[in-house]
């Protein structure tokens, strides 16, 4: 069955392998020609995506004795990661050149991080979760500092690294306790031990709480969110864009997998915890975003707030009848957020100038006159992040709130969710106000790839909001493998 085992990790393996190849190939690509590295990286991602779409034929289900779980949930998320990668590469090309930091390693690191994210979606064992987390995080630390010797970038990398290491430590400690309590790190075995009454409940609960905290850091949930604004602010914009959607989706992949298929019996403990974290994350992320005058920091707080929304799905998934719909709504939300947010970061890069200029929200004054299409796209992204129809952001919220209202006793959380959405309308609309209603002469950049990405994501934001049929259907049948009694 080795071939089957390998087939389950083939797409992720392809990405990691291609990254190794690219390290060498990049040596032979002359400086100033690093666009070729980008192109090769994108080609690798396309190949991985094509392989992934053949997955049903190649092999699904558990592999490597249950350490890897290639279910429809993993399939959806891996596809999402690859698409994120395919959007981030063209976002990056011109930016690196313009900022004078064009180095081929960027794409290599991106691919490594992506392979970590894909592995995260596949992880059926806590040790694999940890490995995947490190594989995705270590390249991200470097990417955050990629604009060295700019101080902000170095600070960003340092902060991200220190707090990330701290979070990893929490996670490892949690895994160790779970292992101590149940005698295994495999989710299936952990569940079996709990159901068989052989687990030490106290250790397991503390372990689960530490795992929740460690992953909460990755998705930027309150109170583990402090790093987010500083890191996004200092990191090169394409890297921040990548983190905000990729690392978040990977964090949620692990959260949903570990808690829904590994610890469903502990739902009485983690569901309320997720509920409170979600409520505080939505509230704080949205309120703090109001005070931001820098667009990158605003998007950072907005990304915290969106983590809060997605956490509602976790809070609403306590029970085998609720969990599938809640998980599907979470992955659809991640997709909607990725499409919208990557586009918004694209617009940030259009206005951003060297040395951290062009990042104040006030710098967007007059954008609707200077660059009407870019401003229109940004307006679409802002409305989608707010959740106004007919954008995909609205549909994602609609789907998510459905799961929350369906869960008993969570109506108040849904109310917190909609009220904080209202708060978010204020700061998202402020960007629109500045672009359309204030006069100004913003400096902008015209770059082909950047424009193409912005256009495509804007169109996708609206088309997925109006004709979501196939994508929704795909998200709906993204089911976590659950272990029967």
């Amino acid at each position, binding site marked *: 069955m080795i071939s089957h085992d390998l087939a389950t990790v083939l797409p992720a393996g392809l990405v990691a392998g291609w990254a190794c190849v690219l390290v060498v190939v990049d040596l032979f690509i002359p400086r100033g020609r690093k666009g070729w590295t980008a192109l090769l990286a994108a080609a690798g991602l396309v190949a991985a995506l094509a392989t992934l779409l053949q997955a049903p034929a190649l092999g699904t289900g558990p592999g490597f004795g249950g350490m890897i779980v290639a279910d429809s949930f993993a399939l959806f998320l891996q596809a999402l990661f690859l698409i994120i990668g395919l959007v981030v590469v063209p976002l990056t090309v011109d930016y690196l050149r313009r900022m004078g930091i064009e180095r081929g390693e960027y794409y290599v690191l991106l691919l490594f991080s992506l392979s970590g994210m894909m592995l995260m979606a596949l992880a059926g064992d806590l040790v694999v979760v940890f490995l995947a987390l490190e594989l995705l995080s270590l390249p991200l630390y470097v990417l955050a500092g990629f604009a060295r010797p700019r101080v902000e970038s170095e600070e960003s990398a340092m902060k991200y690294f220190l707090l990330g290491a701290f979070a990893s430590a929490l996670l490892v400690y949690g895994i160790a306790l779970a292992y101590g309590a149940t005698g295994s790190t495999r989710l299936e075995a952990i569940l079996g031990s709990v159901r068989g009454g052989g687990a030490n409940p106290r250790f397991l609960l503390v372990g689960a709480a530490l795992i929740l905290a460690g992953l909460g850091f990755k998705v930027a949930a309150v109170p583990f969110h402090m790093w987010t604004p500083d890191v996004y602010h200092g990191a090169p914009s394409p890297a921040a864009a990548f983190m905000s959607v990729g690392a978040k989706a990977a964090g949620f992949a692990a959260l949903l997998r570990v808690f829904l298929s590994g610890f469903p019996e502990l739902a009485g403990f983690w569901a309320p915890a997720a509920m409170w974290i979600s409520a505080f994350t939505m509230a704080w992320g949205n309120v703090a975003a109001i005070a931001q005058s820098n667009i990158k920091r605003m998007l950072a707080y907005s990304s915290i707030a969106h983590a809060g929304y997605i956490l509602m799905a976790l809070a609403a998934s306590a029970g085998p009848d609720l969990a599938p719909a809640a998980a599907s709504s979470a992955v659809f939300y991640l997709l909607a957020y990725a499409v919208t947010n990557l586009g918004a970061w694209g617009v940030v890069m259009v206005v951003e100038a060297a040395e951290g200029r062009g990042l104040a929200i006030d710098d967007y004054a007059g954008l609707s006159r200077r660059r009407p299409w870019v401003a229109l796209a940004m307006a679409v992204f802002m409305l989608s992040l707010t959740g106004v129809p007919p954008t995909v952001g*609205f549909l994602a919220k609609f789907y998510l709130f459905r799961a929350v209202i369906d869960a008993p006793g969570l109506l108040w959380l849904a109310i917190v969710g909609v009220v904080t959405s209202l708060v978010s309308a204020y700061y998202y609309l402020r960007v629109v106000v500045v672009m359309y209603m204030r006069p100004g002469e913003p400096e902008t950049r015209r770059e082909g790839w950047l424009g193409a990405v912005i256009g495509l994501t804007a169109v996708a934001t609206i088309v997925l909001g109006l004709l979501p049929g196939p994508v929704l259907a795909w998200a709906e049948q993204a089911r976590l493998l659950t272990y029967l009694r």
Partner: protein
Amino acid sequence: MSDLLSTLTVVTFFPLVGALVILLLPKDRTTAIRWTALATSLVTFILSLVLLSQFQAGEAGMQLVVRAPWFRVAGWTIEYHLGVDGLSLLLVLLTTLLTVVSILSTWSAITERVKEFMLFFLLLEMGMIGVFLALDLFLFYVFWEFTLVPMYFLIGIWGGERRMYAAIKFFLYTMAGSILMLLAILWLGLAGGTFSVPDLIAQGNIPANIQFWLFLAFAAAFAIKVPMWPLHSWLPDAHVEAPTAGSVILAGVLLKMGTYGFLRFNLTLFPQAAVQLAPWVAGFAVVGILYGAAVSYAQRDVKKLVAYSSVSHLGFVMLGLFALNAQGIQGGILQMVNHGLSTGALFLIVGMIYERRHTRELEAFGGLWKVMPIYAALTLIVTLSSMGLPGLNGFVGEFTILLGAFGSEAIGSPWFAGLAALGVILAAIYMLHMFQKMFLGPVTKDENRGLKDISAREILCLVPLVILIFWIGLYPRPFFALMSPSVDRVVAALQTAALAVR
């Protein structure tokens, strides 16, 4: 597909076609853009007349229904489901007519960023028609929220000095109400398994205590939109800052979306709650009537005066609807149209003088009758209509409403109607006060001496409204005939519910 391309679809989405054409025109070709917009709105209006000709006045149920699955989510089939009945038909016609008039009124008022203006305006028209025709709660919500976006831009870009504040306030207030409605819609969908309004009404098995909360959640959205006292504070800001055409549509149509929402959803989906809460709603409506009137009288800015008068007039509409009898509801619907016509015309009138004098202070005028006789005569008719002079449309509407409210079992006391009748007198006071200050007496300000009377285009804007003002005032029967079967059906359902409550 041929089913989908029925009259209702074409009426709803034709403005989008015009918007796409405008999108392709270069932005400095303003004349072409203006004519395209006007032509689009005219064709939409004609299409709505075709709709009127296809409408069977004797039938109570939904007509010309288009229904097709749109997409599936979490076990629900979201449908593209449009239909028209006596409750919505007149409002669709009002929308298409006022859009033509508004676009015509912008010829000289909007000179900056014409392309974007017309784009947003046509998108707004599409959203408004969709709101009145949608029969699927999801679809309705999409149109409902969508109208916010173009209106937000219309106020924020082409508005007055405090336009950004007004635009954001408008957006946030309205959204605050709608998000609660969204939760209620989700709840209904989970309980009923569908978002189709007729299907949900047919199921009709919502327990009374839950109806109460759902009623309130829907009412939050609609009461802000109407706006009912004490949720009206966004309205004066939005109206005063909006450009003339925006104010016309805001007062003429957008506010009606609120009253229409009460009628279409609150009364039919939650009839028991409606019966129980009718005295409360009527109470707030009466407070709104008197408060709006009193505040109007205190205004020095003509546009603000007209804006507050809307609070008062919409109070009448709400009182009529929540009389929960045939007279009250018919009067309420007719008064929605009346208010659209007369207040729309008043905002046009204010806009015309503002274009000439760049002020709207009552003190700045006086004796305009001598300088601009045509303008003054048309204003007089509209003013009299707005204060409810017999023979003009406002009288028919308010009289029917008061008749309904006096005899209403649901409200339970004639005092509501009695106090509301005071509002008619107050309306006469503040409207005549305005007219006297602006038009009568000697010309006191030199700036006013040289004012040109209104142009043929401006007359053309007002004439259709004035014709309808007379028509409804003198011969309202065809208008009542269009709505009465549908209204009777709503009333019958409410009476059944009233029996269940008692």
